[in-house]
């Protein structure tokens, strides 16, 4: 089962590899932006519409 750590958008924290940032590009009708939200490395990714498997 895929987890956040398997996702291209997951950036692990150097000081704690069980946690990281989910960083994505967002866009609304007025602006584009990069945004992040903290996630756990082992968070279940199956239900996530934005999951993008890591290439390597």
């Amino acid at each position: 089962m895929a987890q956040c750590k398997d996702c291209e958008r997951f950036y692990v924290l150097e000081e704690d590899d069980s946690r990281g940032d989910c960083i994505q590009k967002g866009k609304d009708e007025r602006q584009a932006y990069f945004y992040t939200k903290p996630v756990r490395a082992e968070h279940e990714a199956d239900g996530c519409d934005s999951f993008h498997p890591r290439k390597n």
Partner: protein
Amino acid sequence: MSTTAETIDRDVEELEKNQEWWWAAEKKRSKRLDYLRKAIWKKGAIGGLYAPGVKADLERAQLHTEKARELEFSPDPFVIKFAKMLAHVLDNKTVFITDHAQLVGYTGSLPHTVAWDPSCASLLNHEVYNDPTAIPDPVEENQAIIEEIGTYWAGKSDLDKMMPVFDPEDLAKMLSGSIGWGVPMSRGGYSNKDYEYIMTGKRGFQDIIDELDKKIDELDEEIHKPVANKEIAEMVDKLNHWEAMKITLEAGIGIARRYARLARITAGELETDPLRQQELLKIAETCERVPAHPPRNLQESFQFDIFIQMLSRTEAIEGAWPARPDYYHGAYYERDVNIDKTLTPEEALDLIGEFMIRAAEVCQFKPKWSREGLQGIDGTWVWTLGGVDANGDDACNDLTIAFMKAARLVRVANPTFGFRWHPAVKDEVMREIFECLKQGLGYPNLRHDPILIANSMHWHGHPIEEARLWVHQACMSPCPPTKHGFQPMRMANATANCAKIIEYVFTSGYDPIVNMQVGAETPDAAELTDFEQFFNAWVEQMKAIFSILVRAVNRARLLAPSLTPRPFLSAISERCIESGLDACDSTLERGNAWITAFTWVENIDSLAAVKKLVFDEKKYTLGELKEALEKNWEGFEQMRLDFVRKAPKWGNDDDEVDAIMVRCLREAARFSKELKCPSGNNWPILPENVSGNIHYSNIVGALPNGRRLGDALYDGGISPGPGLDKNGPTAVLKSCSKINHISDGRAFLLNQRLSPSQLSGENGFRLWKAYVRSWADLGIDHIQFNMVDDKTLRAAQKEPEKYQEVIVRVAGYSAHFVDISRKTQDNIIQRTIQGLG
């Protein structure tokens, strides 16, 4: 010059000639500013509702509630639990960096969201639940989440905790909505800050944390010595407050580092444009530096300020934005632009414009009555410019001018500027002010610095060196941002709907709109036999209304440190770091309270009409007038017209009516000294309105100035009624100058409309400056100008889509004309356009 540049210049010239300033600004500003300006989601409510697409932010509410549940049975004292809840929000909320931005930080999770703090008041949570236009999709699912959050906070929110400890009679009168506006909460109102401690570049959050660690260690040792007494018992509370402050500071550094990490990862892995990569790395470097450490350059200084505001607005719903940006950021501008030349003036303008944009987009979910009273904006962000320094010398600098230039480029309606005028202000600065006004911004307004410094000393006893540092605490009231001078919270409910004073004289204090006894039980008006008796009844009603509102605020302020503490605000306040007490603790503050007097001038014109037509000329009896008012003038039209046309009106240099204004103000001023705040200081009145004149139009009944229930009230302060100032601008100033602007009240809002065509060119500047000189010589504390002509405003009413960017001065704040109600629009058009010269 290239052909394109020539074309653009020609267009700009043409647009400026046609006074289409908003389109000209769009062409003149940099690509970055243009993008960022257009990126703003309009957060100010339109007709009490948020704009389409703007949504309540559920993320913060969920995070806050999640932590509150987790801590429910923790042995931590409340102040520490609360600090941990804030830290949890800051550690976990979504953060974003807008393309082209150089500054970061927002109260909500995404750009289109309005931050919702569920811990403030159940009544606010009900409003979120009942506002389907602001609930994000899927509405039903999210409504269920909102309900669950609301259920958790029922009985636990600040206001829910405060309600049972208020006097029930005062509470019922206050909440009836007839005489006051807002609720008494320490996490919902106008917070000044100790900028002299936190914004002078001497310390960052880490420095304060280090100091707190030392203090905590010392006190811990003290507490555990082999002795016991009252002082030691109290020390435990200090320890808790200091711990809580430390938690919020660490969380503040933590969220800045999250922005830094986002910027660094984006620059390294996601952004392909090399220029943007460099900008992102600069953002990362900035957020790694501040707020942990003091800023070193203009970008860091602005970013430091934004973090402070964002954190304070995560802790509380702040409806105002006390600030003095040219004073506190000016040295960085000077160094970067003029000395080290690390920034060109144009690059600096980009940063300044963006700094205003970051403030313009801030929004926190507010109840509908608050949104109606502040049409088109989220709160009154009146930033203070100009003025003098602590020694009394001119404090204007190059950044003062740069802010006004940036304002004309970004043309936001919020923040606006309140300019502290004094005799040594240079002509080049006056020109910039005039240019902003001429270009239809409606700001800066002018504040008479010498008068207001003297006023601060008179009313609240601020020492002159502190009084000279004052900032606008909300729209109008000066307050020093100093250790003992800053007021941590001015609760919005000390806002009196003063037209009720004269209305209640006729109803013996019974309010027919809300069907309850609210005011004093004065004798039947029909039985009063002379003007003195009538005036005495007015004084009784004034005292009754003011007392109800002030009692509630005093009670809330006394309870705030224990029931609703402000650990972050305390953490950036010298007096709290020193004492271990909460910022709201009244023993630490000198006191800077004021009663905002909405709908004040109706009293004056009404009293003048009664004096003339009832007592002097005996044309009507009080009994007849009472009946006419009860019937909302229906069946009494001729009589009503007499009261409109044959009675003298304030603002025409008419000694008879002007004397009534002065008499009313002096009665209020006398009583203001009997009303004391918990710090033992006075409660002077401050006549002004925001959009209260429209909000209250259906709440105030018929009045003796000829007004009917539902008619807009006057636009406020000491401005004459719209169209009733018939003797020209000098007569208005002369009437206003009969008021003593130092001792008759805290400040007095005066609206003036001037003709943009008359004021064009060098001659226009000369005329305006002469008018300002008369205003200053007459010792009037405030004046604000609208310089948009009727033609433009009427065209904007017909085709709002073409005039989205037209800004007008409402009262104490500016708004985009298309965002305010038709009634407010008409009210502004009805204001007399004064010809100068």
